[in-house]
């Protein structure tokens, strides 16, 4: 968990315009709260980028 307003340089770096914004391994981004299976789907992309 990263509080975006306390770390504006990171919010800027990861283009956080809405919350929650999930960043996986610097490259994958998820906008908003998503159901568990969808999060897992995104997560599995780290194995086969």
């Amino acid at each position, binding site marked *: *968990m990263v509080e975006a307003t306390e770390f504006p340089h990171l919010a800027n770096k990861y283009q956080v315009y809405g919350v929650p914004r999930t960043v996986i391994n610097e490259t994958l981004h998820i906008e908003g709260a998503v159901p568990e299976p969808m999060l897992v789907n995104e997560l599995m992309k780290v194995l086969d980028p």
Partner: protein
Amino acid sequence: MPLLNDKIQIEVRKALQNMAGPVKLVMFTQISNALECEMCSETKALVEEIAALSPAGRLSVEVHDFLDDQAATEQYKVDKIPAIAVVGAQDYGIRFYGIPSGYEFSSLMDDIVTVSKAESGLSAATKAAVAKIDRPVHIQVYVTPT
């Protein structure tokens, strides 16, 4: 003047009754520097207030100086402050950066109880999928306090 009012203190005390095992909140701040980071002292006060409401010996707080305590900073891979690592029977890699207020206060409370149980509560399908991940993965969730 406590950060948590009477009503919230009662809720926190109740939530922490559900803790199954001991949990340590490892807090990183600037102890030595007069110019403590914004929200650092409040975050430290918050974790100390929460710990005081737990059943005896269940929730403890360990405070480290971000700059002076290099060994701890490296062990917990903390790169900014205020930081809180929620550590139970093992370190599951859970970190809070910035003050956990608003909705994130509930997230912290949930994480403390979850970590104490050493059980994520994720579905069997999720556990099976995640077990296939053979490399380190860094997940950051950006939030705002409201």
